[in-house]
């Protein structure tokens, strides 16, 4: 019969507007049908119902009728003001109609046959008065304590649920949890379409609210127990199951805040949206690395949510100041937000829910948990793993880079992460102690890093007052040296290198000097040569002058002798002489 119904039409659903519920029911409650919400006292049934109505009226334009059998409208209004819903205002705007059905057994006598037509009429009247699409009956089982004829009541309830379906209203009926049955009076018999169980459980003094869809006829739904939270923003439910592995991935890379580490990671740092785990024993610098990463994110102008489980925000800020990281400025700018709580403050689910809420509110690009190992205080290992899986899935969906730290115990393998979450981790950095020569030094290496060619080297990890620095460990002559041993080795190497360098320098200088000497000698010879050349020239000049003077003298003597017959002849011969001289 049920199957036949399905073939005719696909089940229509009605969005509740309750955070998370529409996801696990894949679209809300069955539209136009009643849904049973059962749970023990204080499990949040009334709140669930009320939020369903309020969201319907506010967000989906579906007015609703709240028929209360227990609390008075005044009490309800007070309760809902505290959650941010103004019942009176909504009633005056015709979005909500309230009817308080009150049966005082002491003033009622039953004689003979009767039916609950009065209830139907009241409900019908309320629905018609505002054109309601949603109805809440809270808790209809109160009728059983008000009226004694159970046979009539049962028949009438069956009729009521049929009637609600005929009216086409999406109804929520609440019922108190019974011993063996889901509800004390077996209401689940009548409301066959959808049954949701709310549970309020205390394990090891930690209380958790859980919700389970017991039945949802004609629809697939999540069948797990989902933790939920009631706070000033109403109800929020968290899907416990993994959302699948089909999230988009980013090829973008982000800096780690430690330049040397970026180099080790293919020169570019982590992938954006990847999950990074830093594990190490106590005091290996995990928090410092987290702070460095947070600082780097804030420097890029990204928002970072820092969940601290061990230290208070002010303590982290103070301590990080000592290694030159000023986190306070980012907090002031609103880029960095601390969320700190003791792990044992509440259950794991509650932690997960608060993470979700914080993430949704703050919308960070970088999310840090320091450390995840402390979550063990709030649950067993398998629970922690389940929580982290869900958290990481959620973060990956949102492409938020996640930075987790994990405190490993001194005993046991370093590569053992207590939560065995290795498979969830994309980049795993290991901080370890290297004990040598009476010193304890920190070493860092990359255990794995998916999707990149990363360095396999162990680096010495130094905390300086300018932040974190990584130094190549000395691995020269077949041994690994760190700390002062490395420094001594470095110093020794530096000294011998210095000696060699000096020798070379000396040789170079000597050669230079030789060259200079040679040049000087060349210059001297050249100068000598110049002098000689000048002397030769001078001698030649003087010889020439002497020749001229000699010729003139001869002419003079001839003139004086007056040997020449005539002066013209003499003149002529003089000219000839001059020409011959030339």
């Amino acid at each position, binding site marked *: 019969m049920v199957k036949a119904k399905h073939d005719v039409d696909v089940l229509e659903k009605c969005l509740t507007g309750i955070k998370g519920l529409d996801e696990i029911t894949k679209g809300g409650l069955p539209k136009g049908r009643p849904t049973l919400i059962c749970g023990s006292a204080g499990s949040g049934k009334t709140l669930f119902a009320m939020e369903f109505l309020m969201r319907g009226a506010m967000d989906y334009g579906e007015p609703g009728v709240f028929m209360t059998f227990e609390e008075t409208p005044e009490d309800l209004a007070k309760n809902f003001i505290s959650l941010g819903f103004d019942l009176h205002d909504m009633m005056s705007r015709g979005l909500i109609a309230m*009817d308080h*059905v*009150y*049966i005082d057994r*002491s*003033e*009622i*006598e*039953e*004689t*003979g*046959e*009767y*039916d*609950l*037509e*009065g*209830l139907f*009429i*009241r409900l*019908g*009247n309320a629905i018609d008065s505002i054109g309601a699409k949603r109805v809440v009956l809270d808790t209809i089982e109160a*009728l059983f304590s*008000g*009226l004694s004829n159970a046979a009539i009541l049962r028949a009438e309830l069956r009729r009521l649920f049929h009637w609600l379906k005929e009216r086409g209203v999406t109804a929520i009926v609440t019922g108190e949890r019974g011993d063996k049955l889901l509800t004390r009076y077996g209401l689940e018999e009548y409301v066959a379409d959808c049954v949701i169980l709310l549970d309020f459980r205390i394990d090891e003094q930690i209380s958790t609210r859980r919700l389970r869809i017991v039945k949802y006829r004609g629809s697939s739904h999540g069948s797990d127990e989902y933790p939920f939270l009631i706070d000033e923003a109403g109800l929020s439910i968290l899907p416990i199951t993994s959302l699948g592995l089909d999230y988009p991935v980013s090829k973008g890379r982000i800096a780690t805040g430690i330049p040397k580490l970026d180099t080790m990671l293919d020169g570019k740092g982590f992938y954006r949206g990847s999950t990074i785990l830093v594990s190490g024993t106590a005091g290996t610098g995990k928090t410092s690395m987290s702070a460095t990463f947070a600082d780097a994110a804030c420097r890029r102008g990204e928002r970072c949510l820092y969940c601290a489980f061990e230290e208070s925000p002010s303590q982290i800020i103070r301590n990080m100041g000592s290694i030159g990281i000023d986190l306070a400025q980012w907090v002031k700018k609103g880029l960095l937000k601390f969320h700190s709580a003791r792990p044992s403050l509440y259950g794991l689910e509650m932690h997960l829910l608060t993470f979700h809420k914080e993430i949704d509110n703050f919308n960070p690009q970088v999310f840090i948990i320091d450390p995840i190992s402390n979550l063990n205080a709030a649950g067993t290992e398998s629970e922690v793993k389940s929580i982290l899986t869900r958290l990481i899935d959620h973060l990956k969906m949102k492409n938020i880079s996640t930075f987790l730290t994990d405190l490993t115990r001194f005993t046991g393998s370093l590569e053992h992460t207590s939560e065995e979450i290795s498979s969830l981790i994309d980049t795993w950095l290991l901080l370890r102690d290297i004990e040598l020569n009476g010193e304890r030094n920190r070493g860092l290496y990359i255990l794995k890093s998916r999707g990149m060619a990363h360095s396999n080297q162990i680096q010495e990890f130094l905390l300086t007052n300018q932040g974190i620095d990584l130094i190549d460990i000395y691995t020269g002559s077949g041994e690994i040296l760190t700390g002062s041993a490395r420094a001594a080795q470095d110093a020794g190497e530096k000294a011998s290198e210095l000696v060699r360098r000096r020798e070379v320098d000396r040789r170079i200088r000597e050669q230079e000097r030789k060259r200079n000497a040679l040049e000087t000698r060349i210059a001297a010879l050249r100068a000598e040569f110049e002098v000689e050349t000048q002397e030769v020239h001078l001698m030649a000049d003087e010889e020439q002058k002497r020749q001229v003077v000699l010729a003139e003298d001869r002419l003079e003597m001839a003139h004086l002798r007056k040997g020449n017959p005539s002066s013209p002849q003499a003149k002529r011969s003089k000219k000839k002489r001059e020409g011959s001289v030339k």
Partner: protein
Amino acid sequence: MKAVSPKKGKKAKTCAIEEIWNLRLYVAGQTPKSITAFANLKKICEEHLDGKFSIEVIDLLKNPKLAKGDQIVALPTLVRKLPEPIKKIIGDLADTERVLVGLDIRPVQG
């Protein structure tokens, strides 16, 4: 609850208290149950209240809003508005004993 012996009520004349008994019967249309209830009520009142009563029949199909005021859930419901305190009897009033107990009509002592 009420220490009234059902045996005695049969013959005894009911005490006619000074005031008028103001009774209101809520029904939903002319159903067999409502007709039976009205007939039973009339009979009981005539036998025990000696004319000092008024019966008001309210049909909720015509006036649905009135259901809220008297907190009507089941039908038919008989409400004793006066004398106070308000009493309610639901059902078709077939059991006269219980109606008398419910309305708190005491037998008059001989």
